[in-house]
């Protein structure tokens, strides 16, 4: 069970539907690993429902009712079926769908000998949504964040100065937090990272790479 969770601020933004799309996808994926946060989110949604019921009703004309009644026989739009995807493993259906399958179907870009990145399209114009593959025992060079970064461990785990993270764990960092995560020795680590500004390597050996790390939102 996940040990690191989004805080109540993030869950509120998620439940109220005001969180950017890419970040919402990351929180939603965490909820798949975390019944506790699911319950918390359900309560936050109940709050929304209570506020909704308390609104002052706006008059709606009979014509609107007639219009809807006339459309009841319409065929409902085809919606994405989750049934097939669950068999594909433990990955949240939403991620499988964005990835068009599993990790093997992604295009990976080699960044260092132990780090590969695959950029996934979500349609969110402001956030990069990427999967990081870190080789077992591999280290991501020390880097900073100009903006915010959500990380969700999907496979294996990693550690940094603040702790050790495993499948389902969620980490949120803001502005200028510097860290150097190292994957666990036993297994390759795959994480989802959602960023609103590119990361910046701080060590002199790696700084030249910064110009190649543009934010790939969209």
């Amino acid at each position: 069970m996940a040990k690191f969770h989004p805080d109540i601020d993030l869950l509120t933004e998620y439940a109220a539907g005001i969180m950017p799309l890419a970040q919402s996808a990351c929180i939603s994926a965490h909820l798949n690993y975390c019944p506790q946060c699911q319950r918390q989110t359900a309560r936050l949604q109940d709050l929304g429902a209570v506020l909704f019921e308390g609104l002052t009703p706006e008059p709606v004309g009979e014509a609107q009712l007639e219009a809807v009644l006339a459309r009841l026989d319409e065929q409902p739009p085809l919606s994405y079926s989750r049934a097939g995807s669950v068999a594909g493993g433990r990955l949240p259906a939403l991620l499988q769908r964005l990835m068009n399958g599993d990790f093997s179907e992604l295009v990976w870009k080699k960044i260092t000998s132990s780090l590969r990145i695959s950029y996934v399209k979500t349609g969110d114009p402001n956030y990069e949504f990427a999967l990081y593959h870190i080789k077992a025992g591999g280290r991501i060079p020390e880097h900073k964040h100009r903006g915010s970064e959500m990380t969700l461990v999907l496979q294996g785990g990693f550690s940094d100065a603040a702790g050790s993270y495993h499948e389902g764990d969620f980490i949120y960092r803001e502005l200028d937090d510097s860290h150097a995560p190292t994957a666990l020795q036993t297994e390759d680590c795959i994480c989802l990272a959602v960023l609103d500004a590119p990361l910046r390597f701080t060590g002199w050996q790696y700084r030249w790479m910064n110009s190649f790390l543009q934010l790939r939102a969209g």
Partner: protein
Amino acid sequence: MRRAFVEDRESGSVTSWQGSSGRRTDEWSECLTLIASKEDRAAFTRFFRHFAPLIKAFALSGSTMSATHADELVQEVMLKVWQKARGFDPERAAASTWVYTIARNCRTDMFRRLQKFNTPLAAEDFTPDQEPAEPFAMLQTRRSRDRIHELMASLPPDQAQILAKVYMEGKSHAEAAAELDLPLGTVKSRVRLAIQKLQIQIDR
């Protein structure tokens, strides 16, 4: 029933919290069950008359949506109510929470359409794959809902205002801060305080 009515009058609050009694909520659950099992148009009409005005109010709060789009949203949500009624489980959720969730999702999708997002995802796709269904947790959820209703009246106005901005107007914490001319930290702490007062936070 009569007693509930008198209490409502006496509280004299700006908003009346309809649906706080179990009976009312059950009426809407029954409607949904009738729609699901019998495609009952009369039940749907009752449901529409009660919820469509709330959906419209939800659409118009924050006044970023035009009246035309608000009407469109009402139609879209009510059509979804008809199409998805079979997925409604009265044991799991109150009818109003179920409708609110559909309305919230439709509004998110509409905003994304208007902003020309090119995304394969609809807001409802973000629902986690399986929801926890332990009976104990569900009983707690029901109690928590009733408590939110009761405690809402005692919420300080500044906290109630922020909740309305975030949940009903769909403003992010940052947008709410800009609009109310408050530091972001103040907005966040007011939301958090309100959530504490309403006893929504689960201890870890």
